């Protein structure tokens, strides 16, 4: 049952994601009305966004290889030099296209 195709699968998937997100939006607000968030929990939540990014980037770069490494480095360096997402993403995509065009 766990691995059979679901009827209305995409709709169920979207609703499950929406429900999970709703819980995160309500949970902290609700909790604050009942118990204060400890300093340590606060720290965990502060570190979490960067941790999600690191945990995503590193294995993908290891799996995909040089093209992914170049993409990630170009995007990051571009953001350090100029804080503009348009430019960073554009340059990274150009870098990957060139890398792959040369067969790396």
């Amino acid at each position, binding site marked *: 049952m766990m691995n*059979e*195709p*679901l009827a209305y*699968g*995409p*709709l169920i*998937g979207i609703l*499950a*994601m*929406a*429900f*999970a*997100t709703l*819980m*995160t*939006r*309500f*949970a*902290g*607000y*609700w*909790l*604050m009305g009942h118990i204060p968030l400890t300093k*340590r929990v*606060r*720290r*965990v*939540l*502060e*570190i*979490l*966004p*960067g*941790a*999600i*990014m*690191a*945990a*995503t*980037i*590193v*294995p*993908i*770069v*290891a799996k*995909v290889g040089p*093209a992914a490494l170049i*993409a*990630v480095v170009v*995007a*990051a360096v571009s*953001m350090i030099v100029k804080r*503009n*997402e348009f430019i*960073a*993403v554009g340059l990274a*995509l150009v*870098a*990957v296209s060139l890398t792959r*065009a040369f067969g790396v």
Partner: protein
Amino acid sequence: MVPGTIVFAAAYGTLAAQKGLTLSEAVLMSALVYGGASQLVAMEVWTSPLTLSTVVSLAVVTGIVNARFILMGATLRPWLGALPPWQAYAALNGTVDATWLIATRYRAEGGSDVSVFAGAALTLWLIWVGSAIPGYLLGAFIADPKRFGFDLMLPIFFAAMFVPLWRGARRAVGWVVAGVVALAVSYLVPGWWFIVAGALTGSIAGAFIDDE
């Protein structure tokens, strides 16, 4: 923040098209979930057709990626707590990184009008949902997305978003732990659980190391 949101939404739309979602499914997800990073990660987990175990994975991964909203919601309590609960909970639906930043700045400058938060949330939501459509059409038209690096949209985006988070090496210990654990788990466990395992281990380890 608006240009960033447009690029982000278009990237999501492109990935959604490649993963075989219909345009209405892609738009519905943006409208109901309204969480950029979680939708990008979900596109990696997504399969066609979906099974029950994939749906569970989607919910768990989405909950973890969006766990930062828990903290944001907590910081909004002193402000929204003055409202009737139904209004407060309605306003919380607009919590995303950008609206939370706007709200926090506005509060720091002494503002107290909740409609500023609600207005920013509604505007950004419309931009978010609308910008996914051109991205989707682009993704549906491109025959070989790999050639243009579109398959690497997620790591590219995260690398760009990572830079403004930097607050010195000491704060980065948890992120290093997250990367290392995720790498190890990615070799041991199939699927996308390495994101969850790495992110949770890293942020918990980081919080304890920073304590001492």
